[in-house]
């Protein structure tokens, strides 16, 4: 890995220069009490005072709705056109946990039956994480094997050293390319111990106890107890940086149409409903169990990793105040 520094007051110039190359820059912006990744016209629109963005950067690779293809219908003769994804994007300000999530997401979508759309978007995107100086009660990255110091899945990782400069870890070739494009902004440096600058997120549960324990409670009442409060919306899945389920929908007029994929959630009753009316996951507790099992057991079986990065978004968004931390602790204690 290469190491650089960037003066914090050079950040606006960095973004302007990136934009001049035709790339889109997304950075955290405030709306109401929440922060979202968005484009910006001027640097002062960027919000640096946030623990976590409300939505994860997964939508850059896996948009909430995207075209699979379009077609034209010429009297029953169909001509199909694939989307061409050319737009180059730089995402700034995601947290290191999101990098871990993107690494998982890419692994899931690209390793077996690789997904072209996600691959193209990934090739076109550079992810810059901004290491956490603060955390809240819902952060639990250190309980799931990550930390604010993590660089996995980021192309560049920025740490505000508190001395007017960012310490920049160049994690990937793509990150290197971006840094190399603006040599006058970045200065070389050696590896620095950044941990002192970072948030100290407490460990809430022991993953090594939890992972083997979860399948053993599959048939218990624990899921019903935990999920009676669940109202069956998809908010947790949609804000989750690793949730990847989707639906496929067609839209058309008589001459042309589009096949789209859009986010879906295993929390919805319709998700598994058969045309016959039979529903394999009949009640909400089955759906809640599936969500937790997927993150902490099925992913481990299929991909040798859990698929929760401890970003805490599902907790912050839950209309009923459900907390995965609490639920995992209750599994650990069961």
């Amino acid at each position, binding site marked *: 890995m290469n190491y650089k520094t960037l003066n914090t007051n050079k950040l606006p110039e960095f973004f302007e220069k990136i934009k001049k190359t035709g790339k889109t820059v997304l950075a955290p912006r405030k709306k109401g009490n929440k922060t979202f990744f968005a484009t910006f016209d001027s640097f002062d629109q960027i919000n640096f005072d946030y623990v976590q963005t409300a939505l994860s950067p997964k939508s850059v690779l896996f948009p909430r709705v995207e075209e*699979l*293809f379009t077609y034209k219908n010429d009297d029953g003769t169909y001509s199909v056109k694939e989307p061409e994804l050319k737009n180059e994007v730089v995402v700034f300000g995601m947290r290191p946990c999101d990098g871990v999530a993107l690494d998982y997401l890419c692994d899931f979508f690209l390793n077996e039956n690789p*997904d072209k759309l996600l691959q193209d978007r990934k090739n076109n995107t550079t992810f810059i994480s901004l290491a956490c100086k603060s955390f809240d009660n819902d952060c639990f990255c250190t309980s799931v094997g990550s930390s604010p110091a993590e660089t996995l899945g980021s192309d560049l990782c920025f740490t505000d050293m508190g001395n007017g400069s960012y310490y920049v870890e160049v994690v990937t070739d793509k990150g290197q390319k971006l840094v190399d494009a603006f040599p006058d902004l970045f200065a070389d440096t050696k590896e620095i111990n950044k941990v002192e600058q970072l948030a100290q997120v407490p460990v809430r549960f022991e993953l090594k106890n939890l992972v083997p324990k979860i399948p053993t409670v599959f048939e218990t009442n624990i899921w019903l107890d935990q999920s009676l409060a669940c109202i069956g919306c998809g908010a947790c899945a949609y804000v989750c940086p690793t949730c990847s*389920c*989707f639906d*496929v929908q067609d839209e058309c007029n008589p001459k042309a149409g589009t096949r789209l994929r859009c986010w*879906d959630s295993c929390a919805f009753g319709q998700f*598994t409903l*058969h045309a016959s009316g039979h529903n*394999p996951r009949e009640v909400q507790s089955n759906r809640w169990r599936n969500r937790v099992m997927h993150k902490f057991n099925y992913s481990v079986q299929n991909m040798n990793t859990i698929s929760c990065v401890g970003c805490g978004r599902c907790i912050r968004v839950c209309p009923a105040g459900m907390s995965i931390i609490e639920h995992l602790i209750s599994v650990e204690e069961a």
Partner: protein
Amino acid sequence: MEAKNVYIPYQMKIEKVTYEAPQIKTFKLKFINPEDEAKFSFKAGQFGLYSVFGEGESTFCIASSPTRKGYIECTFREVGRVTTALANCEEGDTIGFRGPYGNTFPMESWFGKNLIFITGGIALPPLRCVIWNALDWRDKFKDIIVIYGARTAEDLVYKHELAEWESRSDIDLIQTVDPGGETPDWKGEVGFVPAILEKNPPSSENTIAIVCGPPIMIKLTLPILMKLGFPNESIFTTLENRMKCGVGKCGHCMVGNNYVCKDGPVYRYDELLKLPLEY
């Protein structure tokens, strides 16, 4: 690996539409692009996603045998938006097809054995593929028995082929309809499939049982097979969870850590028992 957009379907011409039973039709489909046909091959048990442009995709098995080249067939019931749109298609129309997806029946490992197919209603199509495949490789297998039931005589699918199987000496077909579903000239059995199986007990010796049908039929059939001495390893079935992508991504078909679309749809019973009851 270079990724390609797997969601682009093959374009297929509907060459023939066969009315099978109320709300059930069979399409014979031919590839419009000869290059697509040339690189296409599948094995018994696999499925595809059939689509009407502008309406969406629907999942069903390939109901024809891989031994019959140059076309595929599918049989479907009109139940939702896409299947209704399909049912409204006519001969000569173009539809989309993606596939083949999923695993296959391990037919090669069944060589030298007896096969018994136990099925009901609209679940014959996935087994019809295997049955014709076995008949086309007839010398590889010993006895072939088919027990097939439907609610009424009218609801039986592939009536013309059932008649052909009746007349052949190398396949035993036992047809049954639910009590009250018989017509005055009904020659077959009357009773539910599990009861008919019990009445005509096959030997479990060197025999593979392939069971496919509505959940209740499967639930009542398995204990009878157990009683007849079929080991779990000799029983096969298919799962038909909801699917949207066919390639193990969309998550709809998951049963435990299994994606039915790629780890299934064919399951040996001992493998099925390891999965949670979410199908």
